[in-house]
């Protein structure tokens, strides 16, 4: 790609606003994400800590008695903008922040599996392929042809369905444009209650700009995540403002 082409493409800062009041925690995004990105079905040994989850939904419990008891929090890579923790630590440039899309790109073919980026990520949004991915016999036929399955020993994470971005770029290129515009990641498409809004933070007229008051988790760390949240529930705002976990007394020994 030549320099002139680079400058002529509008830099975008793709991001999301997730409405926590709309999320019912059904998990459609989780499965759609796994299917889109060729994540293998969980082997017998896999649990919430050693499986590949590019997108997870956490169950949040309201610590105050008033109001709704539970909220569900979908979390993927937050695509941090500022001093992106994982980008700076990767010893071999396998993680990079794409200036044209604002997406933190993960290059599994260059990753040596040191997992430093995983310890650096405050959102635990990264997964490591602890073993070889495997599908039941014949199920390889259901693999998404646009996404290469990762091998064991490399780290992976959400990249806003980059294959879909590339498809959008290709489609735009057919029309003589360099601007892929807004495309739809798998989780956004799958959400039955449209809790996830995907857009471009650079676009003042876009859906994100109109999303009203939003907040992010761990804002105090100053990483400027591009995935932000919205909720009318106060306890969620309070929880998000509180950094680190102050355990309830009874849970400390868990």
């Amino acid at each position, binding site marked *: 790609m030549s320099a002139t082409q680079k400058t002529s493409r509008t830099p975008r800062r793709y991001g999301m606003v997730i409405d926590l009041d709309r999320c019912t925690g059904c998990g459609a995004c989780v499965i759609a994400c796994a299917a889109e990105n060729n994540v293998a079905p969980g082997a017998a040994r896999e649990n919430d800590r050693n499986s590949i*989850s590019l997108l997870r939904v956490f169950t949040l419990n309201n610590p105050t008695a008033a109001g709704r008891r539970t909220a569900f929090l979908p979390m993927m890579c937050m695509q941090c903008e500022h*001093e992106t923790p994982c980008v700076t630590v990767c*010893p071999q440039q396998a993680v990079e922040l794409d200036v044209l899309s604002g997406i933190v790109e993960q290059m599994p073919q*260059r*990753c040596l599996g040191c997992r430093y980026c995983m310890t650096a990520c405050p959102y635990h949004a990264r997964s490591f392929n602890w073993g070889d991915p495997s599908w039941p016999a014949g199920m390889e036929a259901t693999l998404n042809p646009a996404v290469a399955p990762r091998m064991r020993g490399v780290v992976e994470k959400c990249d806003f369905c980059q294959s879909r971005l590339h498809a959008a770029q290709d489609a735009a290129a057919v029309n003589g444009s360099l601007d892929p515009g807004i495309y739809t990641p798998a989780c956004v498409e799958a959400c039955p209650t449209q809790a996830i809004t995907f857009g471009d933070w650079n676009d003042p007229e876009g859906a994100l700009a109109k999303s009203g008051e939003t907040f992010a988790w761990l804002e105090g760390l100053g990483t400027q995540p591009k995935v932000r949240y919205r909720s009318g529930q106060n306890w969620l705002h309070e929880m998000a403002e509180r950094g680190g976990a102050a*355990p309830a007394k009874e849970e400390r020994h868990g």
Partner: protein
Amino acid sequence: MADMAWVPTTMLDRKFVPRGVTRCTPARFSLWLTPWCLLLGLGLWAAYLCLRDGLLHTNMDNRFAFGLWIFLDLAIIAFGGGAFFSGVLLYFFKLKELNAVIRSAVLIGFLCYSGAVTVLAIDVGQPLRAWFTFWHPNAHSMLTEVTFCITLYLCVLAVEYLPVLLRNRQFRKIPSFLVFEWELHKLIPVLAGIGAFLSFFHQGSLGGLYGVLRGRPFAFRESFGIWPTTFFLFVLSAMAVGPSFLLIMTRVAEWVTRKRLVLESVYVRLARVSGWMLTFYVLLKSIDTMVWLNSTSRRGGFLPWEYYSWEPFGVWILFVEIGLFGFVPALWLMRAGKVNTSWLIAPALLACAGVALNRYVLTVQTLSLATLPFDEFLSYTPSWQEVAVFGGVVAYGVIVYSVLYRYTRLFPQEQER
């Protein structure tokens, strides 16, 4: 038949044993090595499993991405720091007593570093791509700095140890070997110099590894220039604990071999150096802790004492690290020469424990603590494969050290008791 088999071995063995020292019989030596060889075999098997199937043999997971291996790597590299620091003291500060332990120090350094690198090669998911770091270096990453420094320093240590090997009775029969050794030895200060440079940067960048973790407020520290405070604290603590570790290892070697390997004055010197450095380190560490608790952490939105509200990581761990394993051994070691020398191993052990605890806290506690407010505290128990691989590396160290002790003069002052 048994005798027939033993005689040539015995004769071959004697041909390599340096003159002027006594060594146990080959049979006894084999007996000593046997358990270590078994442990090494177990470690190799576990390593093979990890390389064959991937790291699913470990109990590490996405949240506990670093485990036993990284913690022990950090600890043994800190202990191996004695090699570079002794070199600096000997060749630049002219502390001649250290001539008595410098060969042992260099060997221990080499074993610590090569062991750590071996474990790292198993610890990464794609060892075949380990060289990518040299190929696509991200100069901003502390790990790149660590990789470059450790690799180079391992070469330096190997070259530094080469003279000792070349002086073996059999090698020295080739005259040019001895001459090469002599010429190389004259240049040792250069090697000690670049060794110190590399060691400084990688001990530091190992500390920086955690200090730069903006996303882990428990580990994140203020920066001076491009390096966080942990960079400097790691360097200092390695300097402080290196001589202590050397002291312990020499005492252990004396105990195992039942010989007097160095003069008492060497112990006193090592202890004093360790004591002074430890005092300096612990003072700075205390200041750093105060700044972190009261400023850095708060700015990130984290109330510091919450870190210590999870069992078993209470505030006691902070006091143990800085007080019991910090100030106590520091003061004790500084008084070396005035206190019984044979007890100096106790404060040296405390000092080593303190630095190991520091590495443990930064690795394990950092990962255990949740960053997200709703997240849970984690625990992790290493799998047998992890323990075995590490045991294998320890066995490798013991075996190589024993063999080289037997066949080269590790301690010039070695005497029978």
